[in-house]
């Protein structure tokens, strides 16, 4: 399988917490999860893919690439300051789509929290400092799926 199963771990964590926090603590944790409220500062501040993976998903590394995640990006970006990116998947139950640029000073670029009313199909435009892999990650039902594409950048879009 090209995925990482997180559900077992969260279940374990959940039961541990249940004993330590009691019911009210659990309810609070659940509501936090649903709201997805705060801007994930630590993930955006992470300077390597490993930092970001740890902050976002508590994982060591990016999962293997899945055929089910479609990442659209140009082969060559003449201008690194505007690189169009689209991420789409037919995997059901997607709750989050994350876009990362491996070689940028801060790889974490954008994250989309999707409600049940949102299709797993998002597009945006990003800045790339140099030629790099662009990585899209899709979170669905506690599993993470990834796609990767190398984009050649002729003129970087981050320096000054």
């Amino acid at each position: 399988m090209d995925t990482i199963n997180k559900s077992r771990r969260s279940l374990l964590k959940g039961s541990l917490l249940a004993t330590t926090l009691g019911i009210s603590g659990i309810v609070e944790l659940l509501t936090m999860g649903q709201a997805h409220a705060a801007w994930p500062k630590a993930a955006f501040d992470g300077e390597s893919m490993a930092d970001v993976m740890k902050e976002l998903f508590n994982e060591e590394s990016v999962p293997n690439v899945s055929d089910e995640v479609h990442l659209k990006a140009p082969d060559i970006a003449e201008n690194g300051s505007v690189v169009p990116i689209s991420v789409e998947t037919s995997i059901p139950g997607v709750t989050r789509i994350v876009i990362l640029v491996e070689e940028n000073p801060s790889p974490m670029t954008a994250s989309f929290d999707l409600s049940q009313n949102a299709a797993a199909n998002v597009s945006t435009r990003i800045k790339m400092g140099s030629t790099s892999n662009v990585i899209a990650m899709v979170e669905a039902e506690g599993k993470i799926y990834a796609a990767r594409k190398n984009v050649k950048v002729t003129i970087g879009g981050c320096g000054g």
Partner: protein
Amino acid sequence: MAGIKAKAKQKGDLVQVKALMKHPMETGQRKDKEGNKIPAHHITEVTVSAGDKPMVTAHFGTAVSKNPYISLYLSGPQKGDTLQISWIDTSGETASTDVVVK
């Protein structure tokens, strides 16, 4: 200071929402003519809602392009419904707009 240009269009079962936000999206890495660092100033969060119900919440870092563009697809909203799109940035500035599904 800034605005949001948005369009929402029924496409089969889904509604495509496109939004263009006016914002400098400063990375904090650029320098001005005197060599002083220009502080980071970027949108952190964009929300697309229907009524009171959030449909999508996007979090941005510094590497989203200047004048950010997003395209999303929603199910549920119908032709004639109004969607709300808003953003907040690192200085606490906000902008919002309503868009009617066509």
